């Protein structure tokens, strides 16, 4: 006898149920309607509402049972060289811009997460600026260490304005920090600007100082947030993660605790950071941390200090170009928490829903990869 699939069996049972309901005698009919009414009351619906309570889409519950208020897209860490030196990174950024321009409906704005240039050259920054001009939605820029340490941000400021700023959008307060300040390590050693830049450009180069936000910016942040109520939704952008993950690779902000203390009074704070080129999720108290993907190349996960909440993406396949790279979107909810969408090129997109960080990893768990990790 041919074995029936689960779906077939279910559909047959269902059909049989409806047929039997149609054939009820009066007493059985009363029993069934009483049972249905009881079920409705148990669900909390008051008559004369429908007797067929329908639970719509488990997905909606998984996403926090409320639709996002708005969304924005992001592109990050393109590490451009001039095209004649390296066309691969240029093409990757062009692909990201195409992705973002193809979104329908268009996002409210597009956020650039830092490290537009690889070695801070004027040509690289200008090339990046030119490519990003074709982004249709409004563009918000953030600076990374690769953009900064050749000329200490001179060219960046000319092209993109202040590295630290804030704005309000649909009830959410957005802040952009320059979190990759470093203590002077170059004057004593007599390094040229290019030597300083190449030192900072090496992720594992131990000669540089750890990143920090710095006293001046912390003061600015305190002032900027002073007029806000504690229940204001707050989203902070920083290039380096505003916590201490792995010092050897400067996945680190030295004054992270001080910055977190300034943010402590708010109900919901989201920090979105670049620099790590990987899927990264963390939660410290009221702050939910999310990493951005890079368009250029993926970093491996740090050998220690990894936050527990992060479900690591599987190891990028070197034979698969652009694997582990991508761009993405952020769906912002009314309470300020976000669903973080990682649009991985050559892979299925991954969404880290607000319910995941909100429940500290017990609900809405993103799917685990089925390929080997690091």
């Amino acid at each position, binding site marked *: 006898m041919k074995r029936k699939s689960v779906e077939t069996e279910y559909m047959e049972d269902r059909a049989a149920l409806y047929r039997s309901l149609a054939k009820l005698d009066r007493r059985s009919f009363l029993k069934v309607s009483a049972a249905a009414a009881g079920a409705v009351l148990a669900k909390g619906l008051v008559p004369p509402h429908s007797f067929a309570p329908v639970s719509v889409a488990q997905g909606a519950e998984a996403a926090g049972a409320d639709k996002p208020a708005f969304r924005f897209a992001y592109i990050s860490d393109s590490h451009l060289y001039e095209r004649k030196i*390296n066309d*691969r990174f240029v093409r990757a950024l062009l692909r990201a811009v195409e992705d973002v321009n193809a979104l329908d409906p268009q996002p409210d704005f597009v956020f650039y997460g830092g490290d537009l240039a690889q070695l801070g050259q004027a040509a690289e920054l200008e090339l990046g600026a030119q490519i990003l001009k074709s982004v249709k939605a409004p563009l918000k820029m953030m600076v990374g260490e690769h953009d900064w340490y050749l000329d200490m941000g001179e060219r960046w400021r000319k092209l993109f304005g202040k590295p630290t700023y804030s704005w309000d959008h649909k009830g959410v307060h957005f802040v952009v920090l320059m979190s990759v300040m470093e203590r002077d390590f170059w004057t004593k050693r007599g390094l040229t600007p290019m030597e300083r830049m190449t030192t900072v450009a*090496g992720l594992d180069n*131990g000669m540089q100082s750890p990143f920090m936000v710095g006293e001046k910016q912390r003061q600015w942040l305190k002032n900027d947030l002073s007029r806000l109520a504690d229940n204001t939704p707050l989203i902070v952008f920083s290039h380096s993660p505003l916590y201490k993950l792995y010092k*050897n*690779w400067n996945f680190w902000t030295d004054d992270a605790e001080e910055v977190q203390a300034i943010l402590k009074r708010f109900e919901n704070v989201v920090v979105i950071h670049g620099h790590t080129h990987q899927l990264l999720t963390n939660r410290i108290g009221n702050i939910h941390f999310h990493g951005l993907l890079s368009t250029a*190349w993926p*970093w491996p996960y740090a050998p220690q200090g990894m936050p527990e909440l992060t479900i690591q993406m599987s190891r990028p396949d*070197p034979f698969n170009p652009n694997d582990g790279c991508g761009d993405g979107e952020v769906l912002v909810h009314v309470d300020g928490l976000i669903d973080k969408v990682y649009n991985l090129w050559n892979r299925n997109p991954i969404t880290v829903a607000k319910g995941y960080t909100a429940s500290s990893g017990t609900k809405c768990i993103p799917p685990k990869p089925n390929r080997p990790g690091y």
Partner: protein
Amino acid sequence: MSPDARKALVVLVSVLIAVGIWGCAEQVETDQAPKALVQTHMAQWQRKNPDRAAQWIKEEKARHKIRPPADNRHLLTGDQGKGHVYGSYTERDILMWARETEKLVVEGSRIFHSAKLLGGTVGVSCDMCHPDAANTHPETYPKFQAQMGRVALLRDMVNWCIEHPVRGKGLAADDPRMRALEAYITAQRKGTPLEYGKH
């Protein structure tokens, strides 16, 4: 042979030998002048730059963490190798082994972190995807790599990376750069158990 002929033969042979020795001596003498010159210059340079010889090693170690080679001090204790010529180790031996091994590893680190030394043409160096040689997994080679259509050794994978992401020319197996790179990559995984074939 007549005694006169014998005498003449002996004299001839000794003269030839003498000429030969003198000739060789001449050769040594003519080599001596440039050699001495080189040695003088070298001594001068070394006086001016007392640490330069070791400078590049120091600089590289300041930039990047290098895992040290195994400590062989236990070979100096007790009756190790007593009575054997090659088994009796001294402090100097231990030091030399460590320094030379580390030198190759440090050289590998230098190449690993430099797009130029790798021969790359797109400004990409190994450490861009493999900081501190992370995610290189040298302990998993040899393994079958379908994309290469054969069993790959670490050097095959290094060459693939040099040819593709780094866009340079592949290195020969006995190229000093390849040897240095292999040394550095395996050194960074010190202590990891071997697991060849693991994907």
